């Protein structure tokens, strides 16, 4: 891949190259600016924001807004800060990501190595489910969660995210396993290896890249989800819903610096995941699902 990159056939002159660099840098600025502004203003006292320039570095550096956002800010009616909601999100994300990835891996394995009549139709049905507007399931889901006694609870949110996540995880694993030589699986079968043995010994050891994709995808989507969180979260709302409450609470002075600290707190987990493993994600995604 890198050989192709280094050896591009297009030749460009000096003026064109300067132009290209300028455009690329301008866009870099466009992408960085809002986040830069958030970070800079989250460490300023409020007076410097309302009285000063948003681009200016703080005159007085303070971590007070971060402390407030985390533990004392008014979210909804309670001055709890975002901490409990952050915990809700963690408790929701970890099991939901784990379950949907395991189920997706098994589904992908069945759909490529143990094919049966009608499997394509089942896959098509699962695939379409990735793309439905979730508004279509909000009303019945709210009712069902209520009937099951899971409304407004973290387990309820886990269920929702698993159910609507397996379409994507199945898609990823299916596409990935489709490229894996079926002959190896056949050979193992002839040697007497069973369904789970083959999965455990043959498929799983080569699944690293696609597990990374699935985990990052699910983590980002579930952590960032707002619609389900706000609809079914009740008193166990996730971080996104709490942040929205914090920012849009109409009472009192708008403490922008606290809002920014809160927004960065809400963004931090996905940003870290992205910074640590983003490279593998894009690479895996390109190889797996989106045919470029």
């Amino acid at each position, binding site marked *: 891949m890198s050989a*192709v*990159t*280094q050896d*591009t*056939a*297009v030749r*460009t002159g000096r003026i064109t190259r300067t132009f*290209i660099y300028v*455009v*690329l840098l301008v866009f*870099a600025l*466009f*992408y960085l600016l*809002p*986040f830069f502004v*958030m970070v800079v203003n989250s460490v300023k006292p409020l007076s410097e*924001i309302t009285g000063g*320039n*948003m*681009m200016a570095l703080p005159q007085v550096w303070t971590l007070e807004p971060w402390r407030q956002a985390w533990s004392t800010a008014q979210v909804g009616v309670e001055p709890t800060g975002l901490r409990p909601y952050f915990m809700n999100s963690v408790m929701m994300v970890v099991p939901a990501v784990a379950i949907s990835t395991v*189920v997706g891996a*098994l*589904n992908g394995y*069945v759909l490529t190595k*143990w094919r049966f009549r009608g499997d394509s139709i*089942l896959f*098509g*049905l*699962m695939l*379409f*489910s990735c793309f*439905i*507007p979730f*508004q*279509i*399931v*909000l*009303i*019945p*889901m709210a009712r069902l969660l209520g009937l099951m006694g899971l409304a407004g609870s973290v387990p309820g949110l886990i269920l929702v995210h698993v*159910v*609507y996540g397996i*379409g994507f995880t199945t898609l990823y694993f299916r596409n990935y396993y489709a490229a894996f030589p079926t002959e190896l699986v056949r050979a193992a079968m002839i040697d007497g290896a*069973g*369904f789970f043995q083959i999965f455990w010994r043959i498929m799983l050891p080569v699944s690293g890249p696609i597990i990374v994709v699935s985990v990052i995808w699910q983590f980002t989507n579930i952590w*960032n*989800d707002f619609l389900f969180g706000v*609809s079914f979260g009740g008193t166990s709302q996730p971080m996104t819903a709490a*942040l*929205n409450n914090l920012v849009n609470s109409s009472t009192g002075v708008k403490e922008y610096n606290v809002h*920014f600290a809160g927004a960065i707190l809400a*963004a931090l987990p*996905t940003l870290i995941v*992205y910074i640590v493993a*983003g*490279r593998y994600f894009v690479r895996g995604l*390109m190889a797996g699902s*989106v*045919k*470029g």
Partner: protein
Amino acid sequence: MTTTAGRHAETDFRTRLQDWLPKIVLAPSVASVMIFVYGFILYTLYLSFTNSKMLPSYDWVGLENYIKLWNLPVWYTALANLAIFASLYIVICTVIGLLLAVFLDQKIRGEGLLRPIYLYPMALSFIVTGTAWKWFLDPGIGLEKTMRLWGWESFSFTWIKDNDMAIYTIVIAAVWQTSGFVMAMFLAGLRGIDNDILKAAQIDGASNWQLYRRIVIPLLRPAFLSAFVILSHLAIKSYDLVIALTGGGPGTSTQLPATFMYSYTFTRKSMGIGAASAVIMLMTIAAIMIPYLYAELKEKK
């Protein structure tokens, strides 16, 4: 003799189990998709023909909700906004994505640094994106104030408070969030093109412009299609960004079908109308997705 028969029975059971195991493993997923996706779609479809208000009711009222829906001015606002938002969002993301991908593909120094800068917004939620941009675009504290403090006294940028322009602020924030991802898709496409084809064309005297227009862009067709499908489905589902950025306002000027559905169902207690709007959203997405998925699956076989 008996032992072999016994062993036969045993292996028989084992092979049978092995035959069934894959289906048993797949079954819970299929069942949950059938219930939580298709069952729920049918349920919502049914509700859209009933006079459900705050709670679901099962009194059939035929097409009444749909007639009411299409007589609501705010529904037209939502549809018009979706048309504006979706078309601008898709076009601008595609143009920026393609431009950045092509430029990055020119042996750029620092590509390894620029790529993550373009891509990181996609790691942020639309709520965080909306919060950041809401503030950035607020005339009282954001961009407008900064420009004035820097000495550009007449600078004015009040789109977010303007009924006619507020929808474009949503486009700006959404483009900021997604265009880097589109860039990555195109970049992957570009890197997959065989350089020998380009070299051959160059030997034949093609200019850079011709090279891209005639050869590269047509070869990127699959990436264009994927980008279109992903962006259009994101646009139709857009909910969080509007809530965080404008809350649907000023007035109803940035309502989208997704925010309309939510407010009619849960705030205004008109579940029947909310369900009807959800059905229309689903049909719109299905019209785009089903042909695409069908083609994809057929091709892969």
